[in-house]
């Protein structure tokens, strides 16, 4: 990750970071490779296409995760679920252009949002439902390390 002015702003002052009291739904994105995780909490206005009125996130992860969480939650605040699904898809579509480490962090945030949306829908059917937790599929091993491992195994 480069540290341009826009990203530094998110590092210095991450948007929507923190816990939320009595969320309407929460979701979790996890990296099973290293135990990092992102939780996203939502306050939702009930409608045919529900509206995200408030959102927050917390993470056990690196700076890239915090920047991704800050950007994605800022985009998601105040939009309807249909748009939020598009946001998840668009974010996952960006992964190919990122380094494996950055892609893993971004995927974790996108999946946490997806999990929170799915949790909300599930809770409408079953109010006792806890939360969805999705695992990322991106391997966050840096390319150089993969090359080193390949060399060692030759």
């Amino acid at each position, binding site marked *: 990750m*480069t540290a341009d002015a826009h990203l530094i702003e998110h590092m210095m002052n991450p948007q929507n970071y*923190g816990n939320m009291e009595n969320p309407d739904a929460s979701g979790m994105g996890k990296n099973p490779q290293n135990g990092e995780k992102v939780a996203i909490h939502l306050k939702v206005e009930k409608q045919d296409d529900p509206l995200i009125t408030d959102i927050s996130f917390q993470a056990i992860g690196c700076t890239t995760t915090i920047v991704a969480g800050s950007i994605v939650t800022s985009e998601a605040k105040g939009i309807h679920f249909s748009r939020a699904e598009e946001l998840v898809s668009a974010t996952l579509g960006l992964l190919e252009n990122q380094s494996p480490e950055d892609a893993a962090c971004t995927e974790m945030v996108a999946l946490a949002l997806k999990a929170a949306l799915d949790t909300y829908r599930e809770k409408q059917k079953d109010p006792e439902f806890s939360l969805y937790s999705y695992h990322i599929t991106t391997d966050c091993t840096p390319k150089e390390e993969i090359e080193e491992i390949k060399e060692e195994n030759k």
Partner: protein
Amino acid sequence: MKQLFKEVHEAWLATQFTGFMSQTQSRQDLYEFANILFKHLTWLENDFIKNNISYTYDIPQVPIRVTHISHMINNIIKRMESIESQLSTCKDEHVTFRMASDLSYMKAALSKLPEEEVEKCFLAEKKYPNVELSDEARDALTIFLFEESYKEYELIMVYNYSKANSNDAFLNRIFQILIDESFFHLRSFGQMMAEMGILGVPRSLMEEIYKFDNLEQFLKDGIQEEIGAKEECKKLADAVSASSEHFAAFFTFINNQENYHIALMEEALEYINNK
């Protein structure tokens, strides 16, 4: 009392990070006052534990972006007044008497600190005085400082929680040394962040970071993280060595300090394995 605990935590961070902004003798005063507020936090925490009350280190983001240090000083004084108004929620009168006395002195001393312009701590110029860095080295240093300042805060809180909830003198000696070491590193990195215009208060911790079940695994992971941090310090020392002998020496020094942290964690690991 949970609100009181939270506000003391916030006041400690606000005071500590205002210390990073200062370029005058005020820095030392703010560091001392931050130490006192951290001590208050541990007193209140001890009261929670004695009374078997669950608690967390959850706090909202602490805003610190100001143009003049007086804005932060006034903010800290207001925070202290709010703390004073809630002291009665702690039933240990010895604790609240000591806190009230400290707060009264600190408020008076804070109000006398001189004005300083501190806007440059937040301008994100990413320049370190008298040091020329390549774009790549500057980016690496910037990200390193964000990662590590959060990490040091995390370690302070994790070891503090472990120490508060343990009666084992051997482990508590190690935890206290690690807390002290992390304070030193947090201050070193915080001052650098202020110099580079990228100062920000670390984000709050998720509960499972400090309320872990398996100390052995935590120590093993911690040793791996320290090894990773050593590697980062070495890379940074190499990246800046051409432009700053002082900087390179600093990162070599931090790198070598990590060896001590690893040795302490290995000592703790050996101790719990032999118990």
